[in-house]
């Protein structure tokens, strides 16, 4: 224990004057820039990742606005210029959102902040490596920013100022060859270098989390006493470490082909464009699980905490995360059913893809069984969690017609696919992220947010999201191809509805952002444990001291919350060793099933 931390009572009621916490421990810009405190690194990630989310969101709004009309809306005099602009919008929306927001969001922000606390540890296993991953992220983001600024300058000056190799990006976030290596005039090399560097940040973070979970679990916390969030982060980290290097190699090969004309993917140089797709999806399909698995972990925490009930089927939820992570490596070919890969290959990939559906379904059913018989508190994080269940169900089930080879053929590369993955990436992952952010916000900053505003924001987001993407399912099913700057007029009504939904969705996001910022500045003081959760991060003050725990908390079943009794809104939940246990034969405080 550090002598700097203010001694606090054993149970951390949160009423003690927080003379020193991690936010006040050390002042000045250098104390942040050179910090190796996982909590501060998590917050620094938060600033950059949320900024990326904002930039990616601007592109989303721009591209949805262009799609209000079937022709060229932005530059009616010059159709081709409008289409070119649109192609940059959707590419940058995808690239920024995937590489700079979705992949790092939950692991780098919430994982960094919460993981060591959940382990009752002072920090991650390799704190300096953690800071290095952050700076690698910033470096990678700088490359992407170069492309963005280059594109913006070029458009704003009418092509007079062009940064070398930095004219936006128009390849789609997938960088499919040979377009990306031969035909595109945009900043492909700078952008792939950015993604390449961002990948290393992801790998090192994953490595750090795996090591932390193996090495730093406190006495008494065996694998099946870990919070489910850690199971999810662990599964995610496995993918980050094993799959990301393949993306790095692929992007290097792509750069080598584009700059040095080494034939890997371009058939004119003896290469094979379908090989690129295999390489790319070998990473990028597991990457889908990098995005969604941590969300599952957050939702497991939220559902059980706000149901005030031990999570149902703990082991099934835990193992299903690992199963999804491992099976996720074997399904990449379902992105290529129309590419001309052999029929047998397609059949095998189809079958394995279905196998991923099973552990996903198991999770949803276990969450619902946790709700049943709970004592459900509809705080803002829980609203997000409940929305998540609905949206993830739709997102997951609409994967079925895409996994079935025959029905995928007409749906492939249409808006049906766009809607499907947005239900998973946004409807699920972003909802889980926002739910988690609300849930841990009091722990991060020691401030409570306004629950009513939070709920309203969540519901507006939910409505706006469904309006945006349900209409895309319909137009996709009717044949509207994705990545189309202009389209036949029969699709206009769906595009208009979708765009109005996107504006509503944006309002929901601004309400969430405003509410959290308001809490940060003017929120009332948060107790140590406002929600009555029993995972270890709630056993310390809000915000935690510099080295996390003044007194090592004792490890129990993370979901046995019966000892936490609510005193008042100001004091939150406090430990009461005499609280009556829930009565059930054969079940006590142990996690045993």
């Amino acid at each position, binding site marked *: 224990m550090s002598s700097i931390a203010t001694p606090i009572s054993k149970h951390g009621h949160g009423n003690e004057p927080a003379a020193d916490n991690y936010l006040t421990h050390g002042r000045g810009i250098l104390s942040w820039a050179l910090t190796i405190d996982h909590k501060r690194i998590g917050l620094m990630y938060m600033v950059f990742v949320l900024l990326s989310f904002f930039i990616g969101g601007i592109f989303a709004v721009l591209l949805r606005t262009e799609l209000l009309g079937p022709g060229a809306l932005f530059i009616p005099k010059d159709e081709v210029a409008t289409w070119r602009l649109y192609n940059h919008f959707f590419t940058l929306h995808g690239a920024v959102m995937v590489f700079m927001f979705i992949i790092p969001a939950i692991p780098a922000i919430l994982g960094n902040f919460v993981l060591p606390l959940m382990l009752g540890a002072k920090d991650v296993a390799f704190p300096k490596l953690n800071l290095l991953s952050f700076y690698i992220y910033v470096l990678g983001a700088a490359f992407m920013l170069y492309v963005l600024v280059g594109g913006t300058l070029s458009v704003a000056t009418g092509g007079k100022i062009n940064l070398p190799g930095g004219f936006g990006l128009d390849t789609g976030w997938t960088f499919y060859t040979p377009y990306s290596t031969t035909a595109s005039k945009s900043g492909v090399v700078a952008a792939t270098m950015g993604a390449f560097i961002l990948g290393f940040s992801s790998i090192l973070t994953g490595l750090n989390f795996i090591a932390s979970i193996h090495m730093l679990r406190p006495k008494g916390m065996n694998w099946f006493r870990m919070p489910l969030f850690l199971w999810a982060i662990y599964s995610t980290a496995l993918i980050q470490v094993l799959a990301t290097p393949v993306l790095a190699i692929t992007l290097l090969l792509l750069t080598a082909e584009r700059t040095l004309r080494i034939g890997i993917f371009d058939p004119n140089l003896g290469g094979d464009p379908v090989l690129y797709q295999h390489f790319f999806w070998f990473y990028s399909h597991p990457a889908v699980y990098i995005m969604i698995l941590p969300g599952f972990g957050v939702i497991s925490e939220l559902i059980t905490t706000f149901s005030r009930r031990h999570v149902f089927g703990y082991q099934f939820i835990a193992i299903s995360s690992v199963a999804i992570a491992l099976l996720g490596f074997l399904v990449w070919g379902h992105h290529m059913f129309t590419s001309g890969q052999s029929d047998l290959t397609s059949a095998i990939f189809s079958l394995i893809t279905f196998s991923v559906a099973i552990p996903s379904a198991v999770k949803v*059913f276990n969450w619902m069984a946790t709700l049943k018989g709970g004592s459900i508190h509809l705080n803002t994080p829980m609203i997000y969690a409940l929305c998540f269940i609905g949206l993830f169900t739709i997102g997951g089930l609409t994967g079925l017609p895409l996994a079935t080879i*025959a029905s995928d053929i007409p749906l*492939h590369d249409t808006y049906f696919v766009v809607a499907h993955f947005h239900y998973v990436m946004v409807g699920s992952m972003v909802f889980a992220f926002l739910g988690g952010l609300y849930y841990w916000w009091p722990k991060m900053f020691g401030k409570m947010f306004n629950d009513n505003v939070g709920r309203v924001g969540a519901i507006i987001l939910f409505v706006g999201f469904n309006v945006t993407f349900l209409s895309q399912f319909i137009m996709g099913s009717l044949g509207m*191809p994705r990545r189309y700057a202009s389209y036949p007029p029969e699709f206009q009504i769906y595009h208009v509805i979708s765009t109005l939904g996107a504006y509503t969705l944006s309002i929901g996001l601004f309400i969430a952002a405003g509410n959290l910022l308001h809490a940060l500045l003017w929120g009332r003081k948060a107790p140590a444990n406002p929600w009555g959760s029993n995972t270890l991060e709630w056993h310390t003050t809000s915000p935690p001291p510099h080295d996390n725990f003044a007194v090592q908390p004792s490890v129990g079943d993370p979901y046995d919350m019966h000892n936490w009794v609510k005193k008042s809104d100001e004091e939150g939940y406090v430990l009461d060793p005499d609280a009556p246990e829930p009565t059930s034969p054969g079940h006590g405080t142990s996690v045993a099933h």
Partner: protein
Amino acid sequence: MLMTISNMLAATHQGFLLPEQASTIARDIDPLTWFIHGITILFSVGILAVTAWFAWKYRASAHPIADPPGHNNMLELTWTLIPSIIVFICFFWGFRVYMRMTTPHPGSLPITANASMWAWQFEYPAAFNGLTGRGENLYLPLNKPVEITLNSKDVLHALYLPAMRVKKDVVPGRFNHIQVTATKEGEFDLYCAEYCGDSHSNMRRKAIVLNDAAFHAKMIELTDPTVENGKPLPPVDVGKKIASLNGCFSCHSVDGKSGTGPTWKDMYGESQEMADGSKITVDDNYILESIRNPQAHVVKGFGPPSAMNPFSKGQISDEWVHKYLIAYMKSISAHAPKEAAPAATAPTAEPAKP
């Protein structure tokens, strides 16, 4: 405002959630798609409703003390097995239909689809007039199996016929195939479904299904651009048609707008600055050279990486260039000499290669 909305509504498709069925395979795929959509809707609504019901029934004010922890292996087994059975049905059904849609029919009519940035060119077998017919729209015979061979000249494209429920990537360096039997006469949408750059969303054409007699007549017309509906066309119109059939207009405008290539309006007879700074007056020989060897002299501001593909004599003969294409380009240029007598001889020599 209301007018706009009613216009948009009037423009929507006739089919409900799926486009109209216009091929044999559409009839096989649609029941499968409806089966899966049905399961999706059933489970989504069910799970949403039950979740909302639980959230209400077990709200803290009505149910202040949570039930003790529970677990139930039978339940876990049930909700593992039922989804497993459902997805296995989806897989097996989907695999069966997929095999049917990819198996070639003996005696299929072979059609070649050539895709390039950003045009389609469909080639029909040399069974008519002994010539290869070409066109930018896809003509399909009613109720006859067709095998479309896909060929890309540059980057990835994908041929997508929503009403036929078929789609395949057009991959450079490899031939992919689509098997399709159209079952409904009429015009259907034809899209490029794989992103291919600036004008990707403009790579939309039509698939036109014709009955036997009409298809035969169309084939004859396609193999001979000088004739339309059985009547000879004036040379200027033939030139326009050849340009259209070969996809020239996807890059070259005729209204003065700059596209991926320079506009043809007022180009003939005009002095143009080249990429290397030299000046060339656009004449017969420059046009022929630009068709056979487009990179030899590129107009300033155009060219790589959006490079034009060369056209061989087999695609557009010297005679066609001279008699029709040039006549057409002259007709839309203010700089072309008026009443220019047709040259007595076609250009005999290829322009000197730089």
